[in-house]
């Protein structure tokens, strides 16, 4: 393990050295050029990241208040942290977050294991017609999320779905949209869509590994399993952490799939996921201030989770 890590950091370092621009020695000019190169990024970052986030923060500290029947319209005022207190006391938002945890604990490992297994198979050259299978595995990701959700949703609806119909023909009654099953039906859509994408990231990392390592291992008597388990998986660990990170954040932000499925079953509530709760507040319930507080809270949770995951991964590497 430690050998592998040293090796991979060494590879990374030499790669970085190779990318360094020649003649970038004089500091003043370098700084100036640096800023010039950064400017497009910084401009876009300010415009599309920093300012909107700042605006959301400001919005989340304000509230609209009515009086009487409310027919004279609202008055907007500073609310302090009242909207955030509401988030913490809002059972529906909390339920949504817990539901996403439950979902993530199951869906993320299943998807990543699938992606890893596929990546290892393709890397080992086991599958015939590798390009075809790789393409097929990635194809679902190229389908727009809403289209994928609509596609699957129709496979779930009894009376329309050939799947449900076939199962009924052999006397298996399934309700993909039932109160206990619908979460996993949504998880299935996301897994279908994202496994190929994660597979590609892991596969790219595998392809970048030096082949001589495997030859050495083979000489030492390691079989295919041993190489995969003891060399490949530890070496692509950074990619696994990265895909896990993306997946956890993606889980917290789940929106399109449950929104589509909601049109087919009442078992997906309006606040089924935290993002849906924010959406409902902003657009349905006309409370953009509270929606902003939900969004900011969600961002904080996502940030904390990502940080925790990175730290845990780092500790794993150090030990």
């Amino acid at each position: 393990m430690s050998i592998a890590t040293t090796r991979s950091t060494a590879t990374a370092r030499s790669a970085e050295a190779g990318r360094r621009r020649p003649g970038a020695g004089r500091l003043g000019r370098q700084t100036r050029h640096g800023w010039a190169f950064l400017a497009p990024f910084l401009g876009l970052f300010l415009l599309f990241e920093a300012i909107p986030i700042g605006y959301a923060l400001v919005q989340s500290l304000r509230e609209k208040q009515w009086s009487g029947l409310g027919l004279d319209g609202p008055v907007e005022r500073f609310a302090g942290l009242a909207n955030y207190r509401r988030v913490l006391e809002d059972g529906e938002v909390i339920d949504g977050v817990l539901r996403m945890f439950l979902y993530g604990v199951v869906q993320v490992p299943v998807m990543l294991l699938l992606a890893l297994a596929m990546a290892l198979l393709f890397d080992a050259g086991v599958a015939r017609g590798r390009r075809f299978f790789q393409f097929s595995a990635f194809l679902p990701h190229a389908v727009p999320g809403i289209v994928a959700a609509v596609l699957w949703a129709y496979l779930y609806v009894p009376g329309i779905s050939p799947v449900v119909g076939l199962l009924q023909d052999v006397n298996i009654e399934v309700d993909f949209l039932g109160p206990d099953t619908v979460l996993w039906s949504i998880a299935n859509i996301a897994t279908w869509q994202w496994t190929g994408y994660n597979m590609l990231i892991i596969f790219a990392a595998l392809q970048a590994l030096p082949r001589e390592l495997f030859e050495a291992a083979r000489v030492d008597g390691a079989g295919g399993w041993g190489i995969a388990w003891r060399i490949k998986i530890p070496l692509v660990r950074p990619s696994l952490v990265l895909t896990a990170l993306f997946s956890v954040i993606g889980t917290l932000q789940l929106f399109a799939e449950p929104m589509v499925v909601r049109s087919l079953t009442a078992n997906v509530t309006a606040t089924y996921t935290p993002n849906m709760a924010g959406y409902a507040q902003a657009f349905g319930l006309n409370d953009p201030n509270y929606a902003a507080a939900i969004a900011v809270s969600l961002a904080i949770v996502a940030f904390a989770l990502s940080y925790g995951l990175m730290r845990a991964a780092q500790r794993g590497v150090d030990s």
Partner: protein
Amino acid sequence: MPSPPPFSPSRRRTLALLLALASAGAAGTTACARTGSGRSGSGAITLDFWAWADIGQAVDLWNSTHPDVHVELSAPAGGASIFQRLSSAVAAGSGAPDLVQVDYNNLTTLAVAGYLEDITARAAALEPAFVPSAWRQVLIDGRVWAVPQDIGPMAMYYRQDIFEAHGLTVPRTWDAFRDTAARLRAADDSRYLTAYPAGDTFWFASLAAARGAQWFTTEGESWHVDIDGAPSRETADFWTELLADDLVTTSQHWNPAWHAALQDGTLATWLGPAWGAGTLTSYPPTAPEGVWRVASLPSVAADRPSSGYWGGSSTAVLAGSEHVAAAVEFAAWLNTDPDAADLLVDPEHSALFPASLSGQARPAVSRPHEAIGGRPIDDVFRAAADHTHVMTWGPTMDQVRDDFTDAVAAALGDGRPLRDALATAQGTTVAALEQKGLSVTA
């Protein structure tokens, strides 16, 4: 069946006079507004109108006959998200239209949001032009917030072929409805008399209203919330029992499975509104042609027919419009002019069931419907509108809709009675109103 209200010549004259006065007043103000507007080069003003119904033809007719006021119709995002677009536009301070099509159940919500212009002064005189129960739907606290366009009184669509095959008679009371459901189940267990639409709050509300429910009333400066009052509970208990005895199934309106069940005869009736006739043929119809009929909604007592409204829409003027007078004038014309009515009623387009008396008198309203065996359906719905109990809607209807829908799903999932969902919605609604700072009594 009671005949439609007589439309006497004297009444028509009064009406025409009122309308003339209203438009004369509006035209006067339009002239003033025009000078302030630089939106169009020719001196005419332009009104932006967001609507989801297919009413372009009527708008074209207005534009060809009213050179001074040009109406620009758009259906942002297909209409479903019109209010989301609206709230974004109002928040952004630009891009909001002058006029918007609003379903009655959203009217209070939009008025309280501060989006709508109180048009009482300009539109109150239009009252005699409309079916009385339709007019009551645009009143909140005695003020006028929109001009009624179409109405959705509830009735019962039923499959004549299935009723005949099993010797069933059309139920006129809810007790008879239950018996009919049981007899159909006994005769053919692949069929149900109807499906309880689990996700549909406003469908439920229309049936509760038919029993006299008033979910929201204004008492002075306070909202009185009574979602779980006796008429609503009776409605909930009725369906709870039918579901418990497997006499009706559950489904979700507009879901493909529901459409399929209507077509393949799994469901023998649909308790639906006037605007719903097209639903019977909008999905690839597999049912034998012309097997549908329509009858009055069952009621508690056969000699006291009653109905409720589901959906229907109005034309409202946006607060902040620079051309309020012209907008009201257009809204009045769109919804009372006989030629406009012909276009709104046109089955090729919006196929609306008009809210105005002049619209109701158009021959196109009494057209035969192929799906209904080549019969007209307007008599049934006209009578339903006469017997309709009008519900006033509250300031947070999206919240009420979502909370009731979700609570119904939870109750059905846990096998609890539907009245639990009423109690849940009552509690969350009072809390939501209080959260906004509104005055509320429960």
